[in-house]
């Protein structure tokens, strides 16, 4: 039961990865790509890590740290990248 649930979580994560990464190939603006990447990619990664957590609950501190650092760093990184890439037009 739990094994199936973890595979479902990982499957959802992989789907989110494809969803977030696919817009990278295309002629959209950096901010559009950054949006899809930071939202879908982070959610996908977190879902995969939750799936792993369900699979092996023994290593929960490590995986919890992974989830927290994913959530915090990717959000901050999204802001920093958006600030750095868009401040060029309005000096």
């Amino acid at each position, binding site marked *: 039961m739990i094994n199936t649930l973890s595979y479902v979580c990982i499957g959802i994560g992989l789907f989110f990865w494809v969803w977030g990464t696919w817009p990278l190939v295309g002629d959209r603006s950096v901010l559009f790509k950054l949006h899809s990447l930071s939202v879908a990619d982070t959610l996908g990664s977190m879902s995969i890590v939750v799936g792993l957590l369900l699979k092996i609950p023994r290593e929960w501190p490590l995986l919890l740290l992974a989830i927290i650092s994913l959530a915090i760093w990717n959000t901050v990184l999204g802001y920093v990248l958006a600030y750095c*890439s868009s401040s060029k037009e309005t000096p």
Partner: protein
Amino acid sequence: MNLILIIMLAILLIPLYEAWQDDNIWQKVLAFSSIASKTSIMILIVSILRDDWMIGVVGVIILSVGNAALMLLAHIIKRLNDL
């Protein structure tokens, strides 16, 4: 689990292709950030697959430190473009 890893490798090829074909530096940085987080998640999966705690720790450290390097790089590139 092997199948999951193969699918992840296939997904990893998308940002690699993007970094190859796009000439805008910010698009390349985006592809880099995507690749950095994907590879560290893959390291985590491999560590679970092999039941190796040491590789897992390395994966988590790379996950947090790689992003810090990316932020520094973004700021440096911004300064370069300001010149």
